């Protein structure tokens, strides 16, 4: 599903080169729930940005579903983000002027769904995350946990091949975090490939596999239980 080859991301600040991701290679098979962990500044979020096509690597290759993403134009990368990937941000990143339902509808509309169909699918995704009764609420009227669930609903509504989650529980309390993780587990049980970044060791144990980063390099890659 995902194949990463010699991936590096270097930030140049004046004379100094910072290797946020340093020559990393790994593969993620379909249906796997991969946890990427590491200390703050280890490069896990940067790695996720490259995998999620939100940023371009300095060198190396990322193949998603057999497609070499280096070959893609900006328009094609946007198209792939829309159709094949789902991305959940640490701070939810939902659109403040749209209701919960509309936030989830936007990618569906962009995929060419008619409004009624987009609304139906969005509502189904929200209900799945117990947010059906808050669908007409604006983000400002939702708690952090609810906003994160809207963000997850938006990421899964169109049935992406891979779901990326960047520290989705970082701003949530324990109970809400567990609810969010349970949602991920449920999705994974249905075959959803998930790559999640977390610095919480306990949470990382819920995945099939844990990749640990330090200074941009993989220092451990453990299969906990096969998917």
């Amino acid at each position, binding site marked *: 599903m995902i194949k990463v080859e010699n991936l590096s991301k270097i930030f140049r600040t004046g004379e100094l080169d910072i290797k946020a991701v340093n020559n990393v290679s790994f593969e993620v098979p379909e249906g796997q729930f991969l946890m990427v962990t590491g200390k703050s500044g280890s490069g896990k979020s940067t790695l996720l*940005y490259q995998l999620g096509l*939100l*940023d371009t690597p300095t060198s190396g290759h990322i193949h998603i579903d057999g497609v070499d993403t280096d070959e893609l134009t900006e*328009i094609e990368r*946007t*198209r*792939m*983000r*829309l*159709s094949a*990937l789902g*991305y959940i*941000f640490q701070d939810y*990143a*939902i*659109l*403040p*002027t*749209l209701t919960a339902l*509309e936030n989830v*509808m*936007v*990618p569906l*509309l*962009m995929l*060419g769904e008619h409004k009624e169909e987009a609304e139906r699918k969005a509502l189904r995704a929200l209900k799945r995350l117990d947010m059906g009764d808050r669908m007409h609420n*604006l983000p400002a009227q939702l708690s952090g946990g609810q906003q994160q669930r809207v963000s997850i609903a*938006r990421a899964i509504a169109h049935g992406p091949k891979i779901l990326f989650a960047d520290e989705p529980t970082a701003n949530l309390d324990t109970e809400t975090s567990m609810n969010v993780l349970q949602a991920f587990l449920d999705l994974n049980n249905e075959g959803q490939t998930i790559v999640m970044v977390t610095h919480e060791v306990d949470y990382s144990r819920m995945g099939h596999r844990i990749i640990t980063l330090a200074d941009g390099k993989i220092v451990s890659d453990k299969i906990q239980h096969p998917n």
Partner: protein
Amino acid sequence: MPKKNNFINQFMVDIRVGRFLATRDLRRSNIWTTSLIVFVMMLTFLNLVVVGGILVGLIQGAIDAHVKYGTGDLQISPLADRSAIQHTPQIIDIVKQLPGYKNHVVRYFGGAQIESNYRATIDPRTTRDMVSATLMGINPDQERIFSDINTKMMEGKFLDNSDVDSVIVGKNLLAKYTPINDPSFKNLKNVDVGSKILITSNGVSKEYVVKGVMRSKVDFDMAVTMVDSEVRRLQNQTDFNASRISVHLKPGFDSARAVQQLLDMGVGEWARVQVSMDAIPKTVKDMKDTFDVLGMLLSVIGLAVSSITIFIVIFVNAITRRRYIGILKGIGITHRAIEISYVAQAIFYAILGSGIGIATVFLFIKPFIAAHPIDFPFSDGILVADATGALLRAGVLIASTIVAGFIPARIIIKQNTLSAILGR
């Protein structure tokens, strides 16, 4: 063909998503921010229409006054080698048969010396208070029907047909109203309503009482107006051949066509027939051309300023929503859909601002200025703004808004998606 269809399909999707985002943004944006942007757009529109319109209106007011009080829709004047219109009574009969004829006036002109202190000049040490002026002989009843010139009195009253011993003096002839300290231009110093003045023309003198002072901002202001029989008497004129015949047509009738009809009937053999625009003084026409150019220049500058204003407003709006745009890009919304969303919002602001601007111009400003003209020395300035011109300017404003809205959206969208999302 499939590639073309894909492009069209994608474009339609972009429009749908852009419209979806734009309508929600507008519906839920801060009401004060939206009001401020619409207010700026309205002011921008007013700047385009009103500033140039008033400038052109100052001279248009003068032209309108010349047409209304002076030339009418068409004017008949003497041939170049004649001092009066030949066969005036016959011409008037023909004029009355014109399709669309509304009314007319006949005027008689002459030159004269006007003297105010003639009773005191027996003493040779006294300076004579004297001025040269045009005599304008009118039929007061006809004038009242032709226009409301009788309402343009600063002091005193307008003439009646029986006022053979009274005159009206134009305000420019009186130092009281037009103080001029120039030896080459004189006016009368001690004349008021009720004063007696001596008018000498063609060697004939007669004493008249000043019945009123007129301020019309047309030729009457430089003339002494009296009943037509008096001018003819002072000029020793025994026929009825006049200096001017001014004709008003009913609304909707073409003055150029009426002129052609008069020429076809042979009036051109006896007199010169002109439409109003040909008959008004060349100075006024030249001023109109100059003011038209200035008005156009102001519109172009106004448009440039408005485009920059819109650009800044939308740019600031887009900058403050950089993260929002980043998120949209991050979840796969195309650049074009985001651009359409911003352009749609800009069009909404422009249409609403222009609409309110049009309503303000035609429901408030234009009627107000028409009722209270701008008091300019040579005209009663009006606001020149017609529906076609206003709609054209609104169209130009909307078009420039599309460009001015598109560029900042494009600039923000071009920025790195991740940087926009993370706000770095």
